[in-house]
């Protein structure tokens, strides 16, 4: 959980003391701006109430808000928005509506709107979900939207993903065959069965939902986590890589904080928006690793 860098606190301290010495013009302006923002906020809330009353067909969303820099948002809180419902509306649509119409400081990552970029995994009504892939009509009112659990919140719904990326990098996530065909126009052969075997594992979009749902990953920062293990599975099971390489991959997975940490909670598999059978892959790797170790005896 503490993926925060230690030196940051120093940097913060410095900045603060700078500010104390001579409140710069910029600071004053920003101060005024904050006040205005607060006023606008109050106004918005009033307007919103009216709107909600006027429009029957709205949905209520409760959104987690936090910003380390903005007064009034330093203490985490939930903001309520009433957005007009339309058929086909997703949680992401609702957030965009709230941002564009009520509060442009509402912050969340999103890009593709079609479940391929993996930017918008969030904790929606008690489950990790992709906001863009979740129909709001399927959720009960009010829709409660929080940032991914077990990750540091940077601002509103944005969490720090660095730790997740580090874990992905730790499994040497790249294809590494022993040899390639000499002809640069000749492909390596791969059987259909083998491609089928790795197919699901290649679908991962790095959304981090699985990692966030896993209690082990929450407790043990060094645990590789389901997504990284799945990434390793993708290569370890690919026949095009050599046997020695496969063994090396198993060795990485076998570290103390590798596959053995998984306690088959299944929540990763349940929340994965790409339906990757993560637990199954992890279990298969455990068995592979045991088999591999038995060879030593």
């Amino acid at each position, binding site marked *: 959980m503490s993926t925060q860098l230690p030196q940051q606190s120093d940097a913060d301290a410095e900045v603060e003391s700078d500010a104390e010495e001579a409140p710069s013009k910029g600071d004053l302006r920003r101060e005024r701006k904050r006040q205005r923002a607060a006023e606008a906020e109050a106004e918005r809330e009033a307007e919103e109430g009216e709107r909600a009353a006027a429009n029957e067909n709205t949905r209520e969303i409760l959104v987690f808000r936090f910003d380390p820099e903005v007064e009034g948002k330093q203490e985490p809180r939930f903001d309520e928005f009433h957005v007009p419902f339309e058929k086909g509306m997703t949680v992401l649509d609702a957030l965009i509506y709230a941002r564009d119409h009520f509060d442009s400081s509402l912050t969340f990552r999103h890009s593709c709107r079609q479940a391929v970029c993996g930017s918008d995994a969030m904790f929606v009504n008690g489950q990790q979900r992709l906001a863009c892939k979740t129909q709001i009509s399927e959720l009960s009112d009010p829709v409660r939207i929080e940032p991914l659990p077990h990750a540091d919140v940077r601002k509103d719904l944005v969490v720090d993903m660095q730790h997740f990326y*580090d*874990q992905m*990098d*730790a499994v040497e996530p790249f294809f590494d065959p022993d040899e390639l065909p000499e002809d640069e126009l000749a492909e390596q052969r791969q059987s259909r069965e083998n491609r089928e075997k790795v197919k699901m594992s290649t679908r991962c979009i790095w959304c981090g939902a699985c990692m966030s749902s896993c209690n*082990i990953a929450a*407790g*043990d*920062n*060094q*645990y*590789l986590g389901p997504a990284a293990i799945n990434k390793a599975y993708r290569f370890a099971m690919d026949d095009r890589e050599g046997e020695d390489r496969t063994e090396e991959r198993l*060795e*990485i997975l*076998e*570290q*103390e*904080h*590798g596959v*053995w*940490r998984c*306690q088959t909670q299944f929540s990763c598999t349940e929340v994965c928006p790409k339906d990757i059978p993560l637990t199954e892959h992890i279990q298969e790797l*455990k068995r592979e*690793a*045991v088999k*591999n*170790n038995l060879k*030593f005896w």
Partner: protein
Amino acid sequence: MAERYSSFTPGGTMWLLQRVTAAFLVVVLAFHFFLLHFVNHADEVSFLASSARMETLSYYSLMVLFLVTATFHGVNGVYNALINQGLTGRKKQLIKGALILASIVLIVQGIRTANAWAGGFPL
């Protein structure tokens, strides 16, 4: 990058042993419960009855094995749970030591008890 594993790691072994002991325990624990709660009711326990059972070599060895596996399974389970909660470094080493010590004490004490019933190692 996570630290690279170098030589043979016991991670997999411990994991495997945890399963193997579990499989063994299913059988023995069921037998144990059945024998001491249903066949012989708990309130009918007496030193002599226990003693009589313990004097057979097969029962004695089964119980010692039971003790050892259960201790390993339980203590290793606890240790794993702690690592899962992110226990590392010096603290981890300390707790590991303490757990091993406790296991030894438990097993020694258990065997002494068994010997007390059997009147020494049953031959």
